[in-house]
């Protein structure tokens, strides 16, 4: 029986079909499993293993390589604050300290109410808005303690649900177009195109 909800399971199978080898769908599938459970659960691991033709140990080991995939439950909002070089020069460490007291949790842990997990991140590539802050991987550009606290207030009141979905939801846009031609069909098409070009070339001469 599938652990993924019917609709996610269907998306999972579509993802697997996109790649020449099922294993390639590993990261997209782990994101999906995380979208459902908020983290990569043991059941999610088992299902991804089944979908990719691998083993649970393999999936777990792979997931643990990547920072965005959480093997333990995390808060509804994962707040990431960058302290890498550009942000360091702009007060990233200080903002991180401030966030820790505002959110009521130390770096790397989750607040008691389960709402926030605070992370110290590496460079998030938004250095002109340093120190850079992300909530659930959405850039929020709150570079001062005041704007940060304002954002936290909004999050607590659920006023940012439109642009900051709960943790795990990464891609809200689904793939709608696509080409499902087989490799051999494409190869034939290429050959024909080449022949046609050669013919045109000959005519030109």
């Amino acid at each position, binding site marked *: 029986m599938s652990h993924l909800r019917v609709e996610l399971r269907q998306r999972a199978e579509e993802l697997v079909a996109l790649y020449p080898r099922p294993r390639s769908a590993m990261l997209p599938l782990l994101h999906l499993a995380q979208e459902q459970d908020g983290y990569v659960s*043991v059941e999610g*691991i*088992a299902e991804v*293993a089944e979908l990719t033709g*691998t*083993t*649970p*140990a*393999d*999936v*777990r*080991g*792979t997931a*643990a*390589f990547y920072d965005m995939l959480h093997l333990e439950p995390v808060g509804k909002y994962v707040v990431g604050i960058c302290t890498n070089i550009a942000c360091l020069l702009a007060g990233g460490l200080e903002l991180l300290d401030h966030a820790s007291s505002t959110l009521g949790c130390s770096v790397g842990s989750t607040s008691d109410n389960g709402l926030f997990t605070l992370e110290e991140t590496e460079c998030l590539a938004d250095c002109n808005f340093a120190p850079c802050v992300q909530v659930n991987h959405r850039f929020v550009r709150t570079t001062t303690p005041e704007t940060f606290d304002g954002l936290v207030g909004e999050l607590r009141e659920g006023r940012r649900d439109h642009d900051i979905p709960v943790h795990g939801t990464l891609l809200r846009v689904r793939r709608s177009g696509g080409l499902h031609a087989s490799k051999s069909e494409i190869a034939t098409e290429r050959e024909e195109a080449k022949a046609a070009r050669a013919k045109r070339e000959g005519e030109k001469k």
Partner: protein
Amino acid sequence: MTDVKSGVTISVNGRSLEAAPGELVIEAAERAGHYVPRFCYHPRMEPVGMCRMCLVEVDGPRGATLQPACYIKVHDGMTVVTDSEKVKKAQDGVLEFLLANHPLDCPVCDKGGECPLQDQTLTHGSGETRFVEEKRHFVKPIEIGELVLLDRERCIQCARCTRFSAEVSGDTEIAFSGRGDQIEVAPSPTTPFDSTFSGNTVQICPVGALTAKPYRFSARPWDLEQVESTCTTCAVGCRVAVQSSGNRLTRVLGVDSEPVNHGWLCDKGRFTLDSIDGNEASLDPLSAASRLREPLVRMNGVLTPTTWGEALARAATILQDAAQVPGGVGAIGGAALTNEGAFAWERFVRGVLGSDNLDAQYGDGLDGALIQALPKATIDEAANARVVVTLTGDLREELPVLLLRLRENFIKRENALVEFAFASSGLHSLARVSMPVRPGEAHLVAEALTRSDGTVLKGSNVTESELNETRRLLGESGEGVVFIVGRPNFAEDAGVMERAIRVLAEKFTAAKFLPAHRRANVVGALDMGLGPKLRPGRGYAANDEGRTTLQQLEALRTGEQKAVLLLGCLLGNVLDVDGASAALEAGGVVVVSGHGGKTLAYADVVLPAAVQHERHGTVTNIEGRVTAVTAKIVAPGSAWSDVNIAAELAEQCGQSLGLFSDVECAKVIEETVGYPALSVLNDVSDEGAVVGRDRERVERRPLDPMAFPGIRSTNMAGLGEFSGAVAEEEASPSPSPIGATLSEISAGRGVEVPAFDAYALALNVSRHLYDHGVAVQGSPALANLVARTTAYLNHFDLDRLGLVTGDVVDVTGPTVTLSLPVALSDETPRGTLNVVFASIDENGDDTSRSLVDPSSAITQVRLKTK
């Protein structure tokens, strides 16, 4: 071995040398005497170049650069420097980095004294640490599986274990987790590291990160003594280093034998040591966990310790009295003996008792003469064959290391596997064609394969396209094909498989066969004549009317046979336990065995015998390779070797076998029947001899202590101290006489299979590595791994019956109804119900075999949901 002729020329440290194209620099350099230090490199796995210990300077377009010698392949004109200052600095740097986070707990570490990291630190390291920071810490050892513990802080991330798991055993039950210096080896949270092969990771770990629970803290390497021998837990014949501390066995390690095991072992072979000594807690001779130490005779109904003289006299009387009647006596068993033991007992039974009733099998094998008559493949040939067809039980469970060798063939060489799929199969995912064959059907499928008319098998699950694809792969004559043939189902008459084998052998005359006999030295026992119509040296006697095991038991019940000599315990091995018990009850019973068991309840005399690792001799594996087994410890109490017991018993009967010791016996075997024995025992430097083939000397790789830490040296097989005494007139065996041809023997000519009952399921009784046998019962380490009796069904059948894994059902055979949990097994064909032989139910009872109907060619059971 690499062929260096037709090679390339490279320069190493200014000296030019020949190397084979594609050879790794590390190997070429080592052959020329330039040893390059290493950690992650392992000669039996793909290189990964991760640890960077083997950096050497290699010239390139932009001058010499540091490159990993374990990963770079030689090319013509290449210049390599392994001893420059730059190389030394790089290697020292790597070693220092490896030690940075490595704990300094060598004195309490299992690997201390035989640790590649410790050794290389002593030879290459600076001796001082500049690392003053706090080391990485993890919670102390975690149990990652039933047999393996992991100390994460000792791990140096060489990926040997994870590569083994993914590449060699293929089950990927452990993998790297995390990133950077937080990398650790981890199983999944749901499936522990219980691979059949987990012990290999302990053996190849270059530090003490992985340790084996049974061995942990049990000995220090410098206390250990070692001999090289052959594992006789199953019939693959893996080469092993057997180590003991004093007279206590401590460890078995796999030796890298080119034609056989490549250094690997299965966990059962590695961890059954405890059963050799027997469980000291158990003094009950009726327990398989007990070790027999002294002769016993039944007095006033009770087995009572006695002297050898008394016991031998009683045994001689029982057997000789019975032998007065024609066919009045016989012997059953012997598959656990050495060839020498088997040869001695054959002489005793045929020569002294004058009986042809001999059988090393228990009705659960295939006809010995039929197997001997087939053109044979070696393991290497199977592991390189263009097409391999399996008609066997699950090799992972029955002959585990053979499975590893075959995997290599399908993965690295992409050769084809065709499966007759009877039930679970460790090779299933690699099969090109997997034909779901129900009980009683194999011979029909085989016959269909021999016809090219596109025959479809009516009523079978096997499809036309599967048959056609298999026909295509087999070709006209079976050129390049190896059939692996065994007995996948004990609830099916042997005639079905024998018929299938005959049909295939007669049609595909260019194909070869590898018998999947699974019991220890059963091939050797049959080759020594322990079977009806068989004679020592693979001889065949067409007129021999000797009884098989099942016939002997029947004759005991009817009183035609008066007594039986049991070479090993019987009841654990037969399907019909009640019938066999009645037979033993009816006749005189002399048991020669190393271990106790329920069988002894019927014994009149018990003679304690030496078992593996306590005796010298030779054994023959599935491919017919004869190798030496070597005693490491002295048998407990007053147990004797079988040759001595047989010889003394003959004396009691007033005759002489002319055999005075195991070594003497080996000499006689070679001289009288031309079967390799003494020459193998005496040879300390090769891989034995394959019966019926010219002796081929396989150069063994020199022992690489970095790849196989813990092994002292190899090529310590053979007699060592004895060789001077007997070897002078070293017999050189001519290929032994090959007994019968296929046309002379009767096995496989026909079989009657009743029609399938549409309301029943056909029963398949398969094997599991960890069954409730002597080895496992005597080894506490393995006790938790014994298979639980379960009814395995295909998902079609589960769906049809509305069942899911875990539901409990009533399974009714001809005489009993068992209440069993069901589980999904899609490798089990539709309409088939699979249970495991000698598995245990929730009460610890071994009842699965009672479902079998011994009177029918197949057993059909009914299933009632609760």
